[in-house]
């Protein structure tokens, strides 16, 4: 192993779901302590803590966490970056380690989201008194959500999928629903998923419509959860035990991008260009091509989003996402298994945890520890998250080969 390679030494996630007896700090502590145990190190070894939480950003989650797992005086970076918060925390720890400032870093992401309901939307509060008054950057006299398009996440990502259909040929409601059918089917093998229920295509299409074509099971599941990872360098890993070296997972690429200007990005967030840019950079850094990937965990916040990311991550030729899906490729027995964890639609989406939990899933397979849902002989995997606004994290991971 090269001295400047970056390695995940330990990684863990809590069960996703409703944790009524635990707060964000409890969840974060559970994941962090499990990741430290998995790494075979303690808080005393950690030189930097990157702590991700979105819904209570500003509360100093990282410092709160230190009170529960070890106050060693190391720097804390509290990060919030929409749904890419977890990946951003991990990337922050990786940058600190890569810079040579610290030997080991800990990244944690935790969120309480069970029962949060519809995210996005609602807009500005109602005007005071009965008088129209222009407010804000658009001089709006009334809330625009629902009057000038939609601010809701299901509606926004529905348009992302429909836009793909306009560009490359209409995508049917059933095709989008079948993507969801796949992920719910995959989740039945994942004991840490919030939901482990298989749905028929009729059940998915016939469920409550949220924003056409996304019905309720086609939307990410709001839930509670946390995930954490310990990262270090090849130089440090060389000094550790053979067992630690064997289970360590190489971070072959760690990339974070934002959305570059595009004509329509002020109208509909462009989740495509920044994902494509991140993927391109990641493949180049890792020296890996999409066909080398044994599994992919991508940001299926809605069924309509998964489709476009097949294309954005270049798992298929441009415009070929429907064909790619219909070939069976992204099923767990296909050529490029996608979201074998069940994805955000059934494993769940506790926002800040998601970008580390998807890396845990990939690591689990690369270590050969995924039990009944193991993708046989997995060597290389990719994890992707996107947060609106926008931010995209792509990590490419490889098993140690020792």
């Amino acid at each position, binding site marked *: 192993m090269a001295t400047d390679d970056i390695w995940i030494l330990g990684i863990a996630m809590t069960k996703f779901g409703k944790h009524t007896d635990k707060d964000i700090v409890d969840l974060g502590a559970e994941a962090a302590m499990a990741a430290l145990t998995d790494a075979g190190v303690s808080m005393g070894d950690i030189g930097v803590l990157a702590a991700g939480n979105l819904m209570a950003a500003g509360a100093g989650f990282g410092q709160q966490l230190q009170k529960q797992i070890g106050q060693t005086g190391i720097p804390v970076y509290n990060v919030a970056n929409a749904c890419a918060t977890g990946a951003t925390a991990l990337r922050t720890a990786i940058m600190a380690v890569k810079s040579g400032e610290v030997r080991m870093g800990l990244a944690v992401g935790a969120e309480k989201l069970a029962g949060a309901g519809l995210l996005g939307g609602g807009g500005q509060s109602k005007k005071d008194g009965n008088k129209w008054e222009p407010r804000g950057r658009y001089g*709006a006299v009334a809330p625009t959500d629902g*009057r*000038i398009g939609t601010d809701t996440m299901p509606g926004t990502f529905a348009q992302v999928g*429909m836009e793909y*259909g306009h560009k490359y040929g209409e995508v049917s409601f059933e095709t989008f629903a079948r993507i969801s059918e796949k992920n719910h089917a995959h989740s039945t093998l994942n004991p840490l998923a919030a939901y482990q229920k298989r749905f028929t295509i009729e059940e998915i299409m016939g469920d409550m419509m949220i924003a056409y074509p996304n019905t309720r099971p086609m939307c990410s599941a709001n839930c509670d959860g946390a995930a954490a990872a310990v990262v270090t360098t090849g130089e440090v890993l060389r000094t550790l035990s053979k067992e630690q070296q064997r289970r360590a997972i190489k971070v072959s690429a760690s990339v974070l991008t934002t959305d570059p200007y595009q004509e329509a990005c002020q109208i509909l967030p462009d989740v495509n260009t920044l994902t494509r840019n991140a993927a391109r950079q990641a493949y180049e850094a890792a020296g890996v091509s999409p066909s080398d990937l044994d599994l992919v965990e991508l940001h299926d916040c809605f069924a309509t989003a998964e489709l476009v990311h097949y294309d954005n991550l270049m798992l298929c030729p441009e415009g070929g996402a429907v064909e790619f899906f219909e070939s069976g490729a992204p099923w767990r027995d296909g050529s490029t298994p996608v979201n074998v964890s069940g994805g955000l639609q059934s494993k769940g989406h506790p926002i800040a945890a998601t970008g580390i939990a998807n890396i845990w899933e990939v690591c689990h397979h690369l270590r050969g520890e995924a039990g009944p849902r193991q993708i046989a002989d997995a060597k290389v995997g990719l994890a992707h998250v996107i947060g609106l606004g926008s931010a995209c994290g792509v990590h490419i991971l490889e098993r140690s080969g020792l």
Partner: protein
Amino acid sequence: MSASTTSQLPIVSYLSLEPSPHLVANECTACGARFFDRRNACAACFATTFRPVDIETEGVLTSFTIVAFAAPGIPVPFVAGIVKCGSTSVRANIINCEPNPDTVKLGMKVRLVTYSLGTDDDGVEAVGFGFEPVA
């Protein structure tokens, strides 16, 4: 006619009601990028001067969703969409048509229309806009 003056306010400042309703964008004088809000500098080229440009009132529907579940107080279902008006993409509701995927079609031609949001205590009428199918 009432003796009092009835004035109108557009729902957003980028909707112009005169001489006939149309949208107005701030166009970067250096690169032509268009923005519906005010910008400190151009997101595309960083230049700092802008000029108002009128946006075409007819366009093509390039994406849509039918929102069936929204924040409290927002009437559902409604159609939210993206309309390409010439070279500029516009966000709007698609109105005056049934909110179902059999009537709303990608690629259909639509045009800008306005409607009243009501009148306040001072007699000022707020005016909203949407796009309707061109028959």
